[in-house]
Structure formats: structure tokens, C-alpha cells
């Protein structure tokens, strides 16, 4: 009987000790906040499923490090983050087109990166169909990072602390393109921008409302712009020609489809964070929103593939322009743009 009590006491004590130990460790090393992919209440179900790419702090950290590592490019001058800058909502401030290795100028404007998990096709022409394989385009393009997967894998295998980071992220000694792309996606996929003033108003957050000017702008927007720039992403993800040129010098979507009706059409860009994503259009030809509105008012050219909705342009008087711009600025998500979690540390 006594023996039994002793055994029980020892057991209890050891369990208590174990518990104490683990508690101590927690106190010494503050628990890292787990990375999450959060879906704003006013967003639908995403297209990308993290079930096939289980999100972890180590995977996210690796993806972020890769995103900002210029050594991955041919002349070690350009990282993903070079053309996708956080303060520009991961677009490229003041660059009409992307500026790649060896000072090469690309042919299209670097798009912002956010809400990618809801997107089914990528790049201005929609040529890439999966978020995970999107980086391959920039990595291999001679005018962007100008390198190849083999070179990058060899570099990562021989450069500290990458082998350790891959092991922590995926639990294997292996470093291959699949894990590289999956970790990059753990970074780019969680870049969710859905907490602008607009979102707060739509979600009826307490104490947030549009000013009269913003509300008027929103009304005009819904009447004249939202057939293409559909809420809540402010794009319907379709490809259209908006009459920038009589004859487009960039074939656009038809490069992918081979269909003449797609010549000179481009993916409708999101207007979220538009305050910071200029210059605008696929070739970055407009530096200001005023130029963009002027184009829709009186600059639309009769391109043979012009979207029918723009046949007569979109007339906006100066008051309306001011109102629309006031509304567009409610699409700025400062929490996203300044979130240190996404910064190059």
C-alpha cells in the first residue's frame, strides 16, 4: 500500500516537474505569434488552398528571406522585393516598367502583390495559372532576374543559413524547386490587404464612415467603374482593352491565347492601394490618377478590341474627379503597407 502511494507521488511529482519545465521554457523564449492566412469578412473563399502547402512560421520566414535576397538574380542586383516594394503595396514606385538585371528595362509595369490567394491567373496577360509557379517567370526572364532554377538551387544548398531554414520549414534535408516555390508562396500568399477605410465602412466597423466627398465618389465609382473594377477586389480579373492606343504595341493577352480578339487586352488591375501603386497601366504610362481619369474622360482611342463599355469613354467633370479620387484613397490599407511582418527586417 505504501509502495503504491510512493509510486503515485513520484509520478505526480515528475509530471508536475515536466509541466514546470515546459512553462519555464515558454517564459524564457516568448512564444512566436503564428503566421496566419486571414480572410477578411467581406472577401469570398480564396482560390489558393494552403491545405496543400501548410503554413508555418519557418516556411513564411524562408519565403520572406528568399523574396528579399538579391543574390538569387544573375548579377546579384535584383530580388523579388526590388520591383515589389512594400511601401508601394509591393508594386514598383516610380518605375514605368520593371528594372531587371544588367540594367535591363522590362516591357511591363510590375503589378502590386496582395490578395493573390484569390487570383486565378497572374501577370498582365494571365499567362501563369498558379500562384506557386508565378515566381518562375520573374526568375527566368532575361530582363528581370535573368537566372535559372538550377543555379538558384545550387546557391541555396551551399549558402548558410538556407539548408537549416529549409529543414525547419519542411522537415527534410532536401532543397528543390518545389520547396523553394512553396515557401515563396507562404510569403506572397499571406499578403492580404483588406483593412482599408473602405473595408471598415463596408464591414460597418464602429466609428468608421465615409466623408460626404468619399461617399459621392463611391456612388460615381459604382455607377461608372465597377463593371470592370468589381468589389471587393476592385477587379473582375478579366482581360480588356481600355483604348490606350489605336494599335497596341504590346500584344497582351493574345500572346497567351493566340486569339486576335485578345490582342492588346490586359488584366483589369485592382484599385486597392492605388494611391501608392503608380505609375499606372500595363506600361506605366500615367504617373498620376488625374492622367488616368483624363484618359477615360477624353483619351480613349478606338482600338479594334476596345471594350464596348468604353466606347464613349467615361465623362467626369472636375467635381466628380475630386470625389472619385477621394474615394480611391479610402482603398489605401496602411496597416498592410506598414506591417513589419512583411518588411525586409
Amino acid at each position, binding site marked *: 500500500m505504501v509502495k503504491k502511494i510512493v509510486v503515485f507521488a513520484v509520478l505526480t511529482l515528475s509530471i508536475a516537474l515536466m509541466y514546470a519545465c515546459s512553462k519555464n521554457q515558454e517564459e524564457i523564449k516568448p512564444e512566436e505569434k503564428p503566421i496566419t492566412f486571414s480572410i477578411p469578412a467581406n472577401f469570398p473563399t480564396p482560390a489558393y488552398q494552403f491545405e496543400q502547402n501548410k503554413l508555418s512560421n519557418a516556411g513564411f520566414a524562408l519565403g520572406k528571406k528568399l523574396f528579399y535576397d538579391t543574390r538569387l538574380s544573375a548579377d546579384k542586383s535584383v530580388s523579388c522585393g526590388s520591383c515589389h516594394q512594400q511601401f508601394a503595396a509591393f508594386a514598383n514606385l516610380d518605375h514605368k516598367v520593371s528594372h531587371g538585371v544588367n540594367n535591363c528595362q522590362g516591357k511591363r509595369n510590375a503589378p502590386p502583390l496582395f490578395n493573390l490567394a484569390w487570383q486565378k491567373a497572374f501577370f498582365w496577360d494571365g499567362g501563369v495559372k*498558379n500562384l506557386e509557379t508565378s515566381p518562375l517567370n520573374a526568375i527566368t526572364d532575361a530582363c528581370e532576374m535573368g537566372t535559372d532554377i538550377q543555379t538558384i538551387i545550387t546557391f541555396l544548398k551551399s549558402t548558410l543559413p538556407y539548408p537549416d531554414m529549409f529543414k525547419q520549414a519542411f522537415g527534410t534535408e532536401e532543397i528543390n524547386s518545389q520547396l523553394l516555390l512553396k515557401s515563396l508562396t507562404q510569403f506572397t500568399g499571406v499578403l492580404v490587404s483588406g483593412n482599408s477605410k473602405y473595408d471598415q465602412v463596408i464591414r460597418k466597423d464602429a466609428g468608421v464612415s465615409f466623408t460626404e466627398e468619399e461617399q459621392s465618389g463611391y456612388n460615381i465609382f459604382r455607377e461608372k467603374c465597377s463593371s470592370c473594377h468589381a468589389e471587393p477586389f476592385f477587379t473582375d480579373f478579366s482581360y480588356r482593352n481600355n483604348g490606350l492606343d489605336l494599335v497596341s504595341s504590346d500584344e497582351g493577352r493574345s500572346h497567351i491565347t493566340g486569339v486576335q480578339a485578345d490582342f492588346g487586352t490586359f488584366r483589369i488591375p485592382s484599385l486597392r492601394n492605388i494611391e501608392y501603386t503608380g505609375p499606372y497601366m500595363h506600361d506605366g504610362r500615367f504617373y498620376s490618377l488625374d492622367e488616368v481619369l483624363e484618359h477615360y474622360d477624353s483619351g480613349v482611342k478606338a482600338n479594334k478590341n476596345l471594350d464596348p463599355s468604353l466606347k464613349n469613354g467615361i465623362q467626369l467633370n472636375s467635381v466628380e474627379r475630386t470625389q472619385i479620387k477621394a474615394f480611391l484613397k479610402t482603398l489605401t490599407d496602411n496597416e498592410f503597407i506598414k506591417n513589419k511582418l512583411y518588411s525586409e527586417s
Partner: protein
Amino acid sequence: MKLSQYLMALLCPIILLSSCKKDADETATDTKSSFTLEFEHQVNGVALNLNTTTYKNAKGEDFKINVFKYYVSNVKLSKADGTTYLVPESYFLIDESKPASKLITVGDIPTGDYTKIEYTIGVDYARNFAGAQTGALDPINGMFWTWNSGYIFVKMEGTSPQSTTANQALTFHIGGVVDPNNTIRTYSTEINSANPLRIRTDSKPDMHFIVNAAALFTGTTDVSFATLNFTMGGANSVIVANNYAKGLFRLDHIHN
């Protein structure tokens, strides 16, 4: 005493369960084994030698081959009674410059006599748009288009005096899965029932295919390198795919 009774109560169902499982295993007849796919590369009956030998296409034009690689996927075997077996995750990249790639052992096949084989020349629609892949489908293999997602199903590069491009290059990168330029093609062949593919635990047969690289340029449309010497997807790739669908593969014999 009491403790052991509890233990017994706990263990009994476990013992019973495990014994059940064993019984099932013993009564089951489905054993598994493997077979080998062997791809011998030729050009109109002559062995394919990269970079050196000059061949003639159906139009009588000279050409040399520097690169010849292609995907075989979704291998499906059928028995005479109509039952089929789709080899799961069967994606193979065969590359003339890598001899080991021309001899593929396919494992975990239910034993039996198979009288038909079919496979995709290329990669099925879904995988062209799937997330990051590894193994044969790893983009590192140079068979993935990064700017227009999708795999290059068949890649033939070479030279011809008739080619109008710089360095007289021939560039045939065949792929694309969206209509009207879908280039997914299927190869299938019946196997002589007198000598079927006999997969046994103690017998791992070898299927020997002759692969005729010149089949890209004849069969439905005779290609002249003066007019068609470069294609990376699109309508011209469909012309080539329609050609090789007819004559790229021929089952030569089976070693049982």
C-alpha cells in the same frame, strides 16, 4: 488479478483485430510486381545520334537533332476482360541525352496478363496548371514554360540547311492544353494476346518501344523546314502533335 483482467479485456479486441487483418492478407490474391518500359530512339529506322548524323524528313530535307526529350504520363494497362489499371503518379521524362531515362521500371503493378497499354504523350491538363511539382515534372528539367504556364510535351531542337532562322535552327517545343491549340495526345496499342505483358512476382517483363523522332514531321502533314522551323505552342504545334500522335511510338516486342 484485477489488473490482468483489464489488460485481457483491452488486448483481446486488439488481438482479434490484428488476426482479422492477417486473414484478409492471406486470402487475398492480388500480388504486385513490376515491368520495364524501354524506349529506343530512331530516325526512320536508323539509330538516333545527337549532333552528328544527318537525317532526311519526308520532304527530303536534311536535318540534325541536338535535343530530343518528351513526357510519357498516365500509363494505363488493360486486361483482356476489360479491367484496367492506371499507374498512379506515372510521369516520365525521356531524354536522349540521358540513357538511364530511356529505361523505366514501373513498380507496384497488380500481376496478370495485360493486352493493351496506353499513355499520354505529354502531361494531362490538370498538372499543367497545378502548383509547384517535383520529380519528372520539376521545372528544373527545362520542360516548363514559365511565361505561359504549362509543360513542353515534346522538345526537338536541331538544325537544317532549309531553316530560315539564325544558325539554321530548328526549334520544336510542342505543348499547350487549351483549345483550339490543345496538343495532348494519347498513344495506345493492343498487345498480341499470344504474348501478352505477363507481370508475375517472378517475371518482370520488358516492353520495347521504337520511338521515331522523324514522326514529328510526317503522318498527317509533311513539314518543310523552310516554312515551319520554330514553334512553341499554338497552331503550328498542333500540326506537329497531330503528326507524332500517329507515328512516334511503335511497340516492337515484349520480353516476358
